[in-house]
């Protein structure tokens, strides 16, 4: 046997050493992996432990979820009705999703499908840069720039936005609706086409009128649900755009080429083939963006106005609202064990609710994400 070949065969001792080294390496890596897991378990345990004394009291529990009377500092009868705070969280989350989801997905579609890879390579890092801006800077922007802007020119801005975005969308969206409805009454293609256009024009015009009527509206306070929603939407954009684009990019070239080869237009290929194929990935992107929005604290504390009222009417985005995270941040300082224990534990009860929501969203994203992988195979 040559010397080289001999070196390749391990003797028993070397094999044993190698085996020990391997298992030691595995153990070290396992420990390192365990650190974050243990941290998560401890955090959940600690929050649950501190929230339990509050939830343990049935009268507290009932008030917490059903009443909007939040007066934790009242002495001697504190009230812990967090309904308006839950509502505020839901409202801001819904508002920012309404802005960020369509904008984010369309941006991802544009970056991945429409523009060339060079342009996309230029714009994607820019969008992702939004994630690097500290949230307090967003909050500062919300107060200094955006709130006065909303107060002074809010109506005009909103009506212009609605005009630019709403009128074409209404016109396009009305077409299939009209087509669907008219198909039930007549088979005459020409009649259907005319009625479709008429309906579309009416829809566009009514949205346009709505937009115009907004222009004279006055917003009394610029720190409100709308302000917080829009700023949060900007913060959620990088997550949504980045992950959606990855999902779109992972749709195979064969799908696109097959669709185009069958005579579908580029528009049809994107909306009927590529987007449905990538829908699990896009859903994950939306859920992760949602989690960013729900968990954000500094921006909502600064931009949402923090009032404790459920807006009237309930969809009024021009009224200030308060979220769970902002409440925890705002009440933390006074809520020591020394100033009444219920006031301290109620904040952990809120953290617990946020944590439960976060876990549910995380589980949802795992579930949806695994569906996505399954389809790809």
């Amino acid at each position, binding site marked *: 046997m040559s010397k080289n070949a001999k070196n390749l065969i391990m003797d028993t001792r070397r094999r044993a050493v190698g085996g020990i080294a391997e298992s030691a390496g595995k153990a070290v890596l396992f420990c390192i992996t365990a650190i974050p897991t243990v941290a998560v378990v401890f955090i959940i345990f600690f929050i649950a432990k501190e929230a339990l004394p509050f939830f343990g009291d049935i009268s507290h529990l009932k008030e917490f979820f059903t009443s909007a009377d939040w007066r934790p500092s009242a002495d001697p009868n504190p009230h812990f009705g967090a309904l308006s705070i839950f509502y505020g969280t839901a409202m801001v989350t819904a508002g920012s999703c309404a802005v960020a989801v369509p904008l984010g997905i369309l941006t991802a579609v544009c970056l991945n499908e429409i523009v060339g890879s060079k342009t996309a390579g230029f714009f994607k890092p820019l969008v992702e840069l939004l994630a690097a801006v500290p949230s307090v800077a967003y909050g500062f922007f919300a107060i200094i720039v955006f709130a006065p802007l909303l107060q002074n020119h809010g109506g005009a801005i909103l009506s212009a936005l609605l005009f630019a975005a709403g009128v074409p969308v209404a016109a396009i969206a009305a077409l299939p609706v009209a087509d669907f409805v008219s198909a039930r009454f007549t088979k005459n293609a020409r009649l259907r086409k005319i009625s479709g256009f008429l309906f579309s024009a009416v829809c566009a015009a009514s949205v346009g009128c709505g937009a115009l009527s907004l222009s004279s509206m006055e917003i009394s306070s610029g720190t409100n649900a709308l302000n917080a929603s829009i700023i949060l939407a900007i913060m959620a954009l990088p997550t949504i755009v980045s992950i959606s684009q990855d999902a779109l990019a992972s749709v195979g070239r064969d799908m696109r080429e097959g669709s185009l080869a069958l005579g579908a237009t580029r528009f049809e290929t994107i909306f009927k083939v590529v987007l449905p194929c990538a829908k699990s990935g896009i859903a994950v992107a939306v859920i992760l963006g949602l989690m960013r929005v729900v968990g954000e604290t500094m921006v909502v504390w600064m931009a949402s106005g923090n009032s404790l009222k459920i807006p009237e009417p309930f969809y009024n985005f021009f009224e200030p609202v308060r979220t769970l995270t902002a409440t925890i941040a705002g009440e933390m300082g006074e809520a020591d064990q*020394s100033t009444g224990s219920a006031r301290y534990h109620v904040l952990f009860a809120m953290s617990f609710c946020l944590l439960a929501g976060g876990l549910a969203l995380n589980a949802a994203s795992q579930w949806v994400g695994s569906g996505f992988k399954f389809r790809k195979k």
Partner: protein
Amino acid sequence: MKKDIANVLKSGFAAALAFCAAAVSAETKIVIDGSTTVGPIAKAFADFYKETHPEVNITISESGSGNGVKSLMNGACDIANLSRFMKPAEFKSCVDKKILPVAHVVAFDGLAVVVNPDNPVKSLSMRQIADIYTGKITNWKEVGGKDAKIVVVSRDTNSGTYETFNELVLKKLPVSKSAEYVGSNGQAKMRVAATKNAIAYLGLGFADDSVKPLSVDGILPNAKSVSSGKYPIARPLFMFTDGYPKMGGDVYNFVTLHLTKEGREIVSDLGYIPVCE
């Protein structure tokens, strides 16, 4: 050869030790935490004190009166700034943790009730202010202004300013649910400066030209009306230490600075009212 190395190591070690000791003895540290209202005084005092004592390292955080007490209680700071007196419960938990809070009144402060400069309203009574904050009055025309909804801005419940206002003006009645909450005096001022129909309260030192202080019960807030006790919404500002500081020490010098001539000048330059003339 080996001995040489050992010697070098030894002397190096000794030098390092000596250096550390020197660093510890030369650099005293004062950690200050608490109210955003007292914060500017502490900062100005720190700047002044560092000029004559460059070896003293002073860190100041502004996290609200409540958090200041917490820091003091946990031994995380030497001086806690409070814009209200310590609450009995807080006092008790300090004592339980073997901390004995001692109050030093460093200045007086009036709470100015401010509106946007464009607002025609010039004066309100204590009663009217209380009604606005509890939500009984919601339109400026009810107090002689324009027909516009009042945007009520309050400090957050963490702040001593809120506690003072709640006690002196609202008599502990709950603040209206539609009131907005902001996290600092500066933010309250910004909101009023930018919002036509807003009303807010803030430390007199923060009220500059961008907002208009109202006269309360006919009396404008200024140094004279506050120190004479005529202006109704005024309060002392505190620095709390654990026990009385060692006389002649840095902490002692710091919490007695307001009694010196320079200290009084600093206090009044910031818009607060010195304790003694």
